[in-house]
């Protein structure tokens, strides 16, 4: 409890320490260890906590969402168990996790689509009343608009649900259409839009009432890379222009890395890890710098490199030399100088950084692979 209090004080939601689950819940959740026998809560929580304590910026004035010990149990399945997270106002917050981890359930509880079995939830410091939830704009994972209506008609309809009508609604719809870049399609029936346009419309529908909290549930799923990147830009611009808090759930690690200032990994109904992308990536290990040169007298250079500041370890192999560092890129200049001084011509140089996926795999074992495989197989 002391650690959690501390984390909250600095505005960093913390994954729960491993707790003894009731027997049925343990059965439902499954083993709390990854395939390597890594105990998520015991080790990761500690590291995250330390990292957070060290790297967290000054505490934010307020939180968009404060969830504490939220549990949700479906018959035969515990979806959320003591789920606690605090999402600061402003910026893009990523919720990552495999299918069935509890992301969507948390969002459904947040938006009022479902009710938590236990726990407390605050939205912008308010209890989750209809007026508080009207501050939320949800862009669901699947396009949810009326395909037979035009883009403008859809926007006007969803505006009307929030009481935005008349001229104000038309101006707002027009603004969103321009802002999201589908002005040319504003009078086109939604069913005739391209996939990217549909995602934009889906997003625009969530923004008609100028929400303070925008929830984007896997907004780029099924989009081609180009469209996906366009949408990233849109989301980034939107977040910066509106100042709204964006919660983004996604399977795509690079998307989270590209968009999110903070990310929470959700696994088995709990927060498995929390932090900035960089902080999280550190959980997966150091960056690796690989060099191959001609004639390849690595043994002469290895002590020099090992003594460089920031170099955490070196290994010589028949294919070259491998240097481990927290920031490998910062050593490149010094190492290339050593190779030059030793008349070694570098024929191959690469820097390998651990990705969020590596973190994710470390946290969840094979689950993401399975999830991805399932997604590829099922198209979902």
């Amino acid at each position, binding site marked *: 409890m002391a650690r959690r209090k501390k984390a909250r004080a600095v505005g960093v939601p913390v994954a729960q320490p491993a707790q003894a689950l009731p027997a049925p819940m343990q059965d439902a959740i499954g083993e709390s260890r990854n395939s390597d026998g890594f105990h998520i809560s015991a080790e990761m929580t500690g590291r995250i906590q330390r990292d957070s304590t060290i790297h967290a910026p000054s505490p934010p004035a307020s939180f968009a969402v404060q969830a504490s010990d939220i549990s949700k149990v479906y018959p035969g399945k515990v979806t959320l168990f003591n789920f606690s997270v605090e999402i600061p106002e402003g910026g893009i917050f990523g919720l990552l996790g495999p299918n069935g981890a509890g992301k969507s359930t948390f969002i459904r509880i947040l*938006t*009022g*689509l479902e009710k938590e079995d236990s726990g407390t939830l605050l939205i912008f410091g308010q209890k989750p009343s*209809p007026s508080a939830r009207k501050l939320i704009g949800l862009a669901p994972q699947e396009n949810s608009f009326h*395909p037979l209506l035009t883009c403008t008609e859809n926007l006007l309809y969803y505006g009307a649900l929030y009481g935005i009508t008349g001229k104000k609604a038309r101006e707002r719809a027009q603004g969103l259409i321009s802002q999201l870049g589908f002005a040319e399609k504003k009078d086109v029936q939604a069913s005739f839009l391209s996939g990217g346009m549909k995602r934009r419309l889906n997003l625009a529908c969530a923004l008609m009432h100028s929400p303070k909290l925008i929830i984007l549930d896997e907004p780029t799923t099924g989009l081609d890379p180009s469209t996906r990147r366009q949408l990233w830009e849109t989301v980034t611009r939107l977040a910066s222009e509106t100042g709204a808090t964006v919660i983004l759930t996604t399977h795509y690690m690079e998307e989270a890395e590209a968009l999110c200032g903070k990310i929470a990994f959700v696994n088995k109904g709990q927060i498995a890890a929390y932090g900035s992308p960089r902080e999280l990536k550190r959980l997966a290990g150091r960056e690796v710098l690989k060099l191959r040169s001609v004639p390849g007298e690595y043994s002469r250079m290895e002590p020099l490199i090992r003594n460089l500041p920031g170099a955490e370890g070196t290994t010589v192999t028949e294919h070259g030399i491998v240097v481990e560092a927290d920031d490998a890129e910062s050593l490149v200049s010094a190492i290339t100088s050593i190779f030059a001084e030793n008349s070694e011509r570098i024929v191959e140089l690469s820097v390998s950084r651990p990705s969020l996926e590596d973190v994710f795999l470390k946290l969840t074992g094979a689950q993401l692979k399975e999830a991805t495989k399932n997604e590829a197989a099922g198209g979902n």
Partner: protein
Amino acid sequence: MKLLAEISKDGKAFLRERRTLILLVAAPLIVLLVLAGVFGKETTEKALPVSIGLCDLDASEASSLFVESVSSHSNIIDYSERSSCADVVRSQVSQGRLSAAIIIPKGFQQGITAGESQNVTVFLDNSRVQVSPSLEAFLSAAAQGTGQQISSSFILSVWARLDNASAQLDSLLVDVNASRAKALEIQDRIGETHSSLSAIDFSTLTEQLDAANSTLDGAASELRSAQSNLTLMQGKLAFYDEELDSTEADLLRVREMLQNVSDSISSAGAGTNCSDPIFLAYCASLHSMNGTVASALFEVDSRISKIDGAREDLRNINSTMEEFKLNIGASLSETENVRARISNMYEFASSLEESREESLRTMREINSSAAQLVTKSGELESLIRGSKAQINEITSRDALSVVAPILFSSQNIFSSRTFFDFLLPSLIPLILMFVSLFLASTSLVREKNSMTLERVYVAQVPLWEYALTKIVSYTVVLFPEVLLLLATASVAYGAFPLSDTDMLLFLASALVLLLFAFNALGIVIAAFSESEATAFLASLVIGLPLLFLSGILFPFEFMPAPIMLLGQATPLTPAITAMQSAILYATPNYAVFGTLIIYDMVLAVLAAGALYATKGRG
């Protein structure tokens, strides 16, 4: 504004979903068109276009009569000539080749004549559920009609016999009247006789008999005295006779002397001329003398004649006396007889008195019997007259009125209308029920599956408000369908004049209330359905029973009581009632609006409840 937005959204969606729109417009019209064709037959048509097999084993006048009545309204196929025709026709019915078969047993007519009810067997193909009951009723009516004809002729023969009996009663009445007159007469006579007999005084008779006896004694004594006197008188008469004889002898002698004188005078005057005056005096004297003598002679003759007469009289008297004496003797003898008779008469009077009493008693009895006879004959006359009146009353009745005292004289109020005309007021609500159920349920399921409903939930729209909004929205969207159906009913089928705005308003209001109810029900279905197919099937599962419970296909009157109550408790039923009241009976029943509004409110609450209940699902 949410309502307007919802209506605008749903309206545009329906308008842009061309195939649905076309189906929405076309399907009801097609349904109406098809059903108008199917049920376009006039309700007054009596003929049954079905084939009925006949196996007439009797081939009698009575069986022919029955067959004739059946064949007048249906197609009879006669199998009577075939061997085992009963089996043949049964087989034909069981194979669906005949709608029904009639088997008339052998001895049909004979049995009827003998006063035994005859059984005509009918095989019905009851797999044809709509035709079979009508056919059965038709054949039953034909059998009844034939039975009436047969019974009528029997009754007519009974009437004839009763008329005959009545005539016999007339003659009986005459006899009875005669008997009564006789009885009255007997009474009169008996009365008289009784009076007479009662008046007889037997004591006087006895006294008279006593007096007669006494008189008889006196008479006998007198007779004996008279007999003695007669004997004396006879003695005297004998004396007188002797005297007369002597007198006569004297007279005879006188006469003789006179005769001699006369003769002497006549001789003295003989030779004298009395015309000579000298003799005149003489002749005169002679003549005078002769006259005197002649007169004396005449006197004597007269006296002798008188004596002879007297003697004769005496003889006669004597004879009479003798006779008298004999008579007296006979009378005396008779007197004794009379005395004996009087003695008998005493006894006779005594027995006569007893007889009188007996007779009086008998007469009283006879009188009583006669009186009874009069009374009874009066009663009998009344009875006979009553019987005759009854017979007259009976025979004056038409034989058919006895066989069928109640004649069924039905008159179709809506004679010129077709089945479809009657069906139309039910069809319109029915079509709208299915359209609204399908449309509301599948549309909302589509919204649910496309996650647009989730956006509504996220927008924190109160679910009761959303349910109400959706119900009203679907109702508004389907309102043109209401107008289309009413216009079609009016223009194409003449159900009501389109210019009758009150009627139009009533019908449209009833249908809008119906739409409201079934849109609400559609929302309930949608709330619990995971896919459009589920919603569609659920709508069918709810709609079809409502169709069967609505009384359109199966009248409420034929349903078991609980099912009938259930049928009357569906929102479809009051809407149909409203439509029928206005279109069929031209008397709009505004009372059903209350029921429909209650259904609307209940179902709207259910719809909101269903949305609340299923909000967290999926």
